[in-house]
C-alpha cells in the first residue's frame, strides 16, 4: 500500500516534465523557474529547520553511551563511546557522520522456535555507506557542468571515478554502479524483509524511488539515450552564473526529467526524513558530552524560584524558636544561594 502510493506519486512526477517539455514545450519553465525556486526552498527550508532545532530547549543531558564514562583517574574511560569533552564529542560525531559508526552496531533479531536470537547485520551499513558516499561524490562531480574552467580538483575526481576503461566508451563511473547497488539494496530490504516492510511508510519509499529515478535517468543519459552535453553545459553554467539561457540546440526530454526530479528532491529534502543530513548535528543524544557529574546542565526553561535561606528563615521565626527552646544557629550563612527547584513559585513555600 505504502509502496504503491509513493510509486504512483513518483510516476506522476516523472510524467510532469515528459508532458511539460515533450508535449507542451515549456523548456523555459523547467530549466529556469523550477530549479531556482526549488533550490531556494531547499536552502530556506533547511535554515528554517535548523533554527527550529536550535530554538528547542534541551532540558536534560542525554547523550547515548555504551562505554565507561569518565570517573576516577584510575578507571579507563571510553573516549568515543562516552565522550567527556567537546573534542571527544567532535571525534565521535566525525566518525558517525563519515562512517556511520552507530549503524555498524546494527543487529538482527530472529526467532528460532521460542528463542530470540541476535546476530551481526552489517548489510544495512554497507548499503547505506555505498549510497551516501557515492551520492556525495556524484554531487561534487557534477560541478564540472557548473564551472567553466573546471577546477583541477573536480577534474581529478571525475578522472578517478571513471578510470576503469574496460567497459567501452564512455568509461563507466564507479559511483554509478555503487549507488545503484546501494539504493537497490536499501529498497529491496524494505520490500523483501517482512519486519522492515511492516514499519515502512510511504515517506520511506518515496525518497528511494526519487533518488533511484534521478540515478537511472542520469545513467541512461550517459550510456544509452545520449544528450547534447555541450548544450546542457550552456544551460547549467547559465543557471550557476545567474544568466539562465534556454540553449538553441535541442536536448533530449530525459534531461528535463532528470533535472525536474533533482528539483523535486531539493524542494522535498528539508521537510522529509532526508533532513537527517543536518539533523544529525542537532541530535542531543550525539552532540552532548557525557559529563553530568562534572558540569551541571541547567534546564533552560527553569526559572528562578523565590526562596528563603536558612539564615533568613531563622531570622523570621527567631522569636518563636527561642520561645520553643529550639537552638539558634548564629553561624548560618546569610548570603543567598542561586539554586533552582522543580517547584513553581509560591507552590510549597508560603512566603
Amino acid at each position, binding site marked *: 500500500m505504502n509502496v504503491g502510493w509513493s510509486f504512483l506519486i513518483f510516476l506522476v512526477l516523472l510524467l510532469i516534465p515528459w508532458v511539460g517539455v515533450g508535449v507542451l514545450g515549456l523548456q523555459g519553465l523547467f530549466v529556469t523557474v523550477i530549479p531556482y525556486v526549488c533550490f531556494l526552498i531547499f536552502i530556506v527550508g533547511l535554515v528554517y529547520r535548523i533554527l527550529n532545532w*536550535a530554538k528547542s*530547549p534541551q532540558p536534560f543531558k542525554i547523550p547515548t553511551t555504551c562505554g565507561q564514562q569518565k570517573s576516577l583517574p584510575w578507571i579507563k574511560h571510553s573516549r568515543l563511546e562516552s565522550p567527556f569533552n567537546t573534542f571527544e564529542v567532535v571525534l565521535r560525531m566525525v566518525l558517525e557522520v563519515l562512517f556511520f559508526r552507530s549503524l555498524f552496531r546494527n543487529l538482527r533479531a530472529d526467532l528460532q522456535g521460542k528463542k530470540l536470537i541476535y546476530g551481526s547485520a552489517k548489510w544495512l551499513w554497507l548499503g547505506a555507506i555505498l549510497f551516501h558516499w557515492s551520492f556525495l561524490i556524484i554531487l561534487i562531480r557534477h560541478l564540472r557542468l*557548473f564551472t*567553466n574552467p573546471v*577546477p583541477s580538483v573536480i577534474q581529478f575526481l571525475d*578522472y578517478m571515478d571513471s578510470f576503469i*576503461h574496460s567497459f*567501452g566508451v564512455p568509461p563507466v563511473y564507479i559511483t554509478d554502479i555503487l549507488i545503484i547497488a546501494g539504493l537497490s539494496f536499501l529498497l529491496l530490504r524494505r520490500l523483501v524483509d517482512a519486519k522492515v516492510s511492516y514499519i515502512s511508510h510511504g515517506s520511506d519509499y518515496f525518497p528511494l524511488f526519487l533518488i533511484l529515478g534521478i540515478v537511472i535517468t542520469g545513467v541512461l543519459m550517459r550510456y544509452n539515450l545520449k544528450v547534447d552535453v*555541450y548544450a546542457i553545459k550552456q544551460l547549467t*553554467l547559465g543557471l550557476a552564473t545567474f544568466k539562465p539561457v534556454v540553449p538553441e540546440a535541442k536536448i533530449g526530454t530525459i534531461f528535463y526529467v532528470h533535472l525536474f526530479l533533482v528539483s523535486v528532491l531539493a524542494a522535498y529534502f528539508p521537510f522529509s526524513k532526508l533532513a537527517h543530513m543536518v539533523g544529525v548535528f542537532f541530535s542531543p543524544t550525539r552532540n552532548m558530552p557525557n559529563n553530568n557529574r562534572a558540569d551541571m546542565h541547567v534546564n533552560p526553561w527553569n526559572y528562578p524560584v523565590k526562596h528563603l535561606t536558612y539564615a533568613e528563615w531563622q531570622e523570621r521565626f527567631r522569636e518563636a524558636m527561642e520561645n520553643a527552646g529550639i537552638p539558634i544557629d548564629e553561624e548560618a550563612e546569610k548570603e543567598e544561594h542561586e539554586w533552582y527547584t522543580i517547584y513553581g513559585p509560591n507552590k510549597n513555600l508560603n512566603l
Partner: protein
Amino acid sequence: MYNAGKVIIFIVVLILFFTIPMWLNLGRVEAIPKPELPKDKAKCIESKEYMRAYHMKLLDDWRKQAIRENKHVYVAKDGEKYFISLQKTCMKCHNNKEKFCDSCHNFVVTHQDCWSCHIAPEVAEKWQ
C-alpha cells in the same frame, strides 16, 4: 536560540557548500568556446542533432565494425554510403582536432578515447 554562535557558523558553512556552483565561478568564468565547423560542407554524415548527442556512440560502433567485424561501409540514415574511418572520413572535413574536438571536450570535461591509437592531422603534419 541556544548555542547561537555555533549554529550560525553551521548555517553559513552549509549555505557556502550548497552554493559552490554560484561562487566558484566568481571572477574566473570564461566565455563558452565554439567549435570550428568546416566551412565548405553544409552537412555531416547524419543530422546535426544526432551528431551532437551521439557522435561518440557512432565512432564507437565504427571502431567495432572496422576492427572486429571487418565492415568498412557505413550506410547513413539518408541512404548515403561512407567509408568507416576516423582519419579518412571524419578528419577530412573536421581537419583540426584542437579547434573542433578539443574546444567542446575540454569545456565539458569529457575524455576522448580516439587519440591513444589515432594521430590528429596537425600532429601528423608536424612529424612529416
